């Protein structure tokens, strides 16, 4: 069972799972999440997309929102006919300028070693929105989930 979030926000549905902020915890949490519904129900291609996007979102929270501090990442994933709806919350620093970065991809010829993350997130997701709600960062987006032929 996931731990209780440390700051009790009023949640309208159960938290899907909670990851402790940290690169190793993100790796383990993501691996566990991929093995259970709803992620385990996705096609291989869609699961690959979800792994990429969630890894980038979680890593951004660890590195920038919490910037090395302790904290938790709360994740809700909901699968329906429209796709996989994702909501990720943390209590780290707000995004600069109150907006999620545009994610303009760096130019390959410049041999960039970073700056790829938001481009990957935005290219693979739809309906991305960021809100600062009190002390909480809330990022919502949808990921593809092809219908399993019913």
């Amino acid at each position, binding site marked *: 069972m996931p731990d209780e979030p440390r700051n009790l926000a009023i949640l309208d549905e159960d938290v899907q799972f909670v990851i402790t902020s940290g*690169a*190793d915890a*993100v*790796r383990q949490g993501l691996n566990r999440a991929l093995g259970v519904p709803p992620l385990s129900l996705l096609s*291989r*291609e869609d699961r*690959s*997309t979800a*792994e*990429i996007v969630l*890894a*980038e979102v979680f*890593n951004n929270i*660890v*590195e920038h929102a919490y910037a090395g501090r302790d904290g938790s990442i709360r994740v809700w994933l909901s699968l329906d006919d429209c796709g996989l709806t994702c909501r990720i919350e943390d209590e780290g620093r707000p995004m600069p300028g109150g907006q999620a970065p545009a994610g303009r*991809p*760096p130019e*390959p*010829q410049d*041999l*960039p*070693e*970073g700056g*790829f*993350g938001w*481009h*990957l997130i935005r*290219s*693979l997701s739809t309906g991305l929105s960021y809100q600062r709600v009190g002390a909480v960062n809330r990022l919502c987006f949808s990921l593809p989930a092809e219908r399993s032929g019913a």
Partner: protein
Amino acid sequence: MQLKSAMNGSTLVIRVADDRIDAAGAIQFKERMRDLIQVPCDRVILDLSNVHFLDSSGLGAVVAVMKLLAPDRKLELACLTPTVEKVFRLTRMDSIFTIHPALAEGLRNAG
């Protein structure tokens, strides 16, 4: 971060034994690679057949290694699995590397 290296003629082949190059392991990957590429060689091929996931940190680390080898030696990649290939393609960083579908082909043909 487990890396296994072997010389094939004058080509250094480094196989990544870990199944991910991600934020948790990118720095160790870079450091291990920096040690392994000290050997004299004309080419370096990074065999990624065992790597099923690579995130932006992993990609950055691979680029960093490429820059360490430059200008005298090129970093070539082999055996990209689907998710890894997707990350290289979406970022267009696949245009920067010589990528071999299979190691045998990479060893036959200079990049």
